[in-house]
């Protein structure tokens, strides 16, 4: 059901600052909305996102109900060597998704 979109350049030169873009499909229900009958729609959000390169943390974010649906993040990293980026999203109701992308550094 859940799906991730990851954008990491396949190749980079040593020392390049590259941009990483990620998007995870998720409703991000705030917990502040009501149905027409007045019941509160329970909160269901992603609370944490992280990106690691070969096990080392590169970027991490805390998410809140104020994060728009299908959370999008873009951030940067220095390309120093070839390797694998691991992405992880954790949220309410046991939500847990991972994705990965490899880069070749010349």
């Amino acid at each position, binding site marked *: 059901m859940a799906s991730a979109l990851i954008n990491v350049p396949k190749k980079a030169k040593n020392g390049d600052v590259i941009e990483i873009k990620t998007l995870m499909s998720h409703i991000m229900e705030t917990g502040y909305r*009501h149905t027409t009958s007045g019941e509160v729609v329970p909160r269901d959000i992603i609370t944490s996102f992280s990106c690691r390169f070969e096990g080392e943390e590169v970027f991490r974010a805390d998410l809140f109900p104020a994060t728009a649906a299908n*959370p999008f993040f873009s*951030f940067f990293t220095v390309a120093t060597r070839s390797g694998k980026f691991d992405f992880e999203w954790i949220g309410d109701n046991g939500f847990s998704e991972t994705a990965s992308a490899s880069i070749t550094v010349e």
Partner: protein
Amino acid sequence: MPRQHLSTRRRFLKVAGSAAAMGALPLAVSVRPVEATPETMASAIRNVTGGAAVQNGKVKLDIPPLVENGNSVPMVVTVTSPMTANDYVKSIHVFNEKNPQPNLGNFYLTPRNGRAQVSTRVRLADSQKIIAIAKLSDGSLWSTTAEVVVTLAACTEEVM
């Protein structure tokens, strides 16, 4: 006779006045708006800064000044920093004053980032002030603010 009349009237006013004051107090407490007030934003900011001084500058907050739909507002935070092992941005915290919660996002960076810039999309429930605070590796705190006008609010509408 007129004197006694005056004193009872005075006593009545005194009693009525204090009753009104007592009545008004719980009323004022119960009329708390269902939104993050500038006070809750201030306390959320204190949680991050620990009461330390925050200086203006170094942080740039790119967010549209006029937003038609508050459900998805693009936001870019950039901090001026060399991002070396000795001098880098540790974290960026973004706050708002009128959503149901004062936080928009916390971002934790490392020297590996090379550039201290983060983009995301947020929800805004009302026209309001946004504050971004950056915590540097030397412990100093830097901030900037932006005003956003929202035409269609997010977060609290009814679900069909």
